[in-house]
């Protein structure tokens, strides 16, 4: 088609050549045949485009339009070759063009677009929502409290922050309560030297009751509003109880004897289920947000996922089977954290010879990601408001590291502790993190930032729904 159109138009323009300029005012302008195919074959246009309006096509005009810029191109090339030639051409073009056309532009120019920076304008065009402001992460602890006699034992769980905004910490044989709203400290209990030291503390979801695990294998239940010992769970374990986890009225205890026991604290024969899967001390124990799955980590480098629906209700029915047994960690698995925004996602951290944070799909048991942190992982916490994960570490930096999930880009490293950061707890509003380290200090970090204004309401209704859901079960 192109070749055809070309030959036609060149023929035409040759025929038109003798016509004087401005022959027909207002009609098609006269085209000087500066560049016809025969004279300048290189100027031929081999368009590769589909021209959709063949019927309305004006071959003469098209040829003119197609060849006109070609001349310009040659001019551009000619500048280098010969300025005089270029000047001649320009003169010629001026003569020819000026005879038939004036090019006019409006004197007043249109206003320039107001966008100061194009990138800015483009981004604002693309996303109606303004870019989220970067949160400032304070690099130093907001507050530091002394924690004398804090037992430097990786396998224990001595710090918890309850829904009543009261922090509990076990220092030696004593459990202290620190009210975060008022900053006041009170002593809950000092146990006998025989049964001490305390090996674990855990607030019940109601924020009123607290479970205290002891070196003697006993577990005490305290009412903090009246400072009263409610009951002692005896004979459950044969060794110290280093890990505790609540699932409504079920208190799950993990012990050095490798056993995990579900205790229904409301009934006399409180042992409801026993999970046997660990051969060594159980040091990590966490229920998922839905209360359907329990993650347990042990000194035997094992991670188990237990599912409520698989547990036999008869304690005598023998061993309960785990849903998944995950053997990827190469050191004790103590740090466990269920993702608050993705129900089947679990983050786990390994001890000194493993140093990895791993992510698991607990439905399938698939390891989703593994990141070597370079240091013992003592504790893990998810940010409730953002997709971030906080890990606490031991030698060499004794730091807290904030990771972006899922990219696992380090967002911040918080240093200050002078010995390994054994325990972490998150405030009920999710903003503040308390960390207790072997340097016998308790530090508070404003690492997770304030939640967005509309979010808490939505969250509250959500948890409300979940609560009722759980109650139905």
């Amino acid at each position, binding site marked *: 088609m192109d070749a055809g159109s070309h030959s036609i138009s060149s023929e035409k323009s040759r025929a038109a050549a003798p016509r004087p300029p401005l022959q027909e005012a207002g009609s098609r302008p006269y085209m000087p045949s500066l560049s016809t195919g025969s004279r300048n074959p290189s100027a031929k246009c081999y368009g590769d485009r589909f021209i959709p309006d063949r019927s309305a096509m004006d071959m003469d005009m098209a040829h003119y339009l197609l060849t006109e810029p070609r001349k*310009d191109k040659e001019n551009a090339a000619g500048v280098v070759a010969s300025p005089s030639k270029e000047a001649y051409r320009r003169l010629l073009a001026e003569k020819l063009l000026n005879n038939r056309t004036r090019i006019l*532009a409006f004197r007043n120019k249109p206003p320039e677009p107001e966008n100061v920076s194009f990138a800015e304008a483009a981004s604002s065009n693309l996303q109606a929502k303004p870019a989220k402001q970067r949160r400032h992460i304070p690099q130093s602890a907001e507050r530091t409290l002394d924690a004398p006699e804090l037992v430097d034992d990786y396998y224990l769980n001595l710090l918890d922050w309850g829904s009543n905004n009261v922090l509990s910490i076990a220092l030696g044989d004593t459990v202290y309560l620190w009210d975060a709203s008022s900053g006041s400290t009170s002593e809950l209990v000092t146990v006998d030297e025989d049964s001490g030291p305390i090996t674990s503390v855990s607030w019940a979801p109601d924020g009123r009751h607290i479970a205290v695990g002891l070196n003697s294998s006993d577990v005490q239940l305290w009412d903090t509003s009246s400072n009263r010992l409610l009951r002692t769970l005896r004979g459950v374990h044969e060794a110290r109880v280093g890990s505790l986890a609540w699932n409504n009225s079920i208190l799950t205890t993990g012990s050095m004897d490798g056993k995990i026991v579900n205790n229904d604290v409301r009934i006399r024969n409180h042992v409801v289920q026993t999970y046997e899967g660990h051969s060594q001390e159980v040091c990590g124990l966490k229920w998922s947000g839905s209360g359907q799955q329990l993650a347990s980590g042990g000194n035997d480098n094992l991670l188990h996922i237990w599912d409520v629906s698989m547990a036999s209700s008869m304690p005598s029915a023998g061993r309960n089977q785990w849903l998944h047994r995950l053997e990827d960690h190469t050191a004790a698995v103590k740090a466990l954290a269920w993702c608050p925004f993705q129900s089947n996602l679990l983050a786990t951290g390994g001890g000194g010879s493993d140093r990895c944070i791993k992510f698991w799909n607990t439905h399938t048991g698939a390891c989703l990601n593994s990141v070597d942190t370079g240091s013992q992982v003592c504790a893990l916490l998810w940010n409730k408001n953002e997709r971030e994960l906080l890990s606490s570490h031991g030698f060499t930096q004794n730091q807290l590291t904030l990771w972006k999930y899922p990219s696992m880009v380090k967002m911040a490293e918080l240093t200050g502790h002078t010995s390994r950061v054994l325990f972490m707890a998150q405030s009920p509003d999710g903003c503040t993190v308390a960390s207790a380290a072997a340097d016998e200090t308790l530090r508070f970090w404003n690492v997770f930032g304030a939640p967005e204004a509309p979010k808490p309401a939505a969250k509250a209704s959500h948890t409300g729904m979940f609560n009722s859901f759980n109650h139905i079960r």
Partner: protein
Amino acid sequence: MASRTASKDIITLRGSAAIVSEFFGTARGQGGERTAAHRASDRILYNRAVYPEESFTKVKKYGLTMLLTQDEGVKTFIASLTSQLSEWLEAGKLQRIVLVIMSKATNEVLERWNFNIVTDAEVVEKGAIKEKSDKEIMREIQAIMRQIASCITYLPCLDEPCVFDVLAYTDTDVDAPGTWVESDAKLISNPQMVKLHSFDTKIHKVDTLVSYKKDDWDEEE
């Protein structure tokens, strides 16, 4: 326009000039409803993001989404420009309207939107009247508007702030008011060209063509 309303199929030079100037960007104050129908200039400025998206309003008309600039400066510019253009169109002295998009920083011409106008000499000289249905012309114009809208698929990205200007190619004997100045053609060296649809009022035939700066990446091919 009054003459056109008398009978839909009869077109005078005046009516034709009105259609063409409407197509490009109507002078302020002319029939409200119809003016919204075509505004090739607005469409181009929107599609090529010369002005921010927020400065346009969308109006749904004749099965097409029309985009009208709300920028007072641009509005005034286009309106005062078009009123002069329609005058020249009526005299049959306008050969071409070119909307040029230039880099704001370097003033380099990046795109030229050519609207070539061929006026039927007989009509201008003898005042002849042609027949073509309004509907048919509108259909042709809408086809062009759609093509302009779809141009972004192959036009290179304008990734810098841009400004635009409008050039009018007229006969040499026109009376240019003081508001107009002579300009160079603002050509693009080594351009790519794409011809779009045409429309014909039987008096004015308008060919649309966009030429743009070739991407450097294509040079080797």
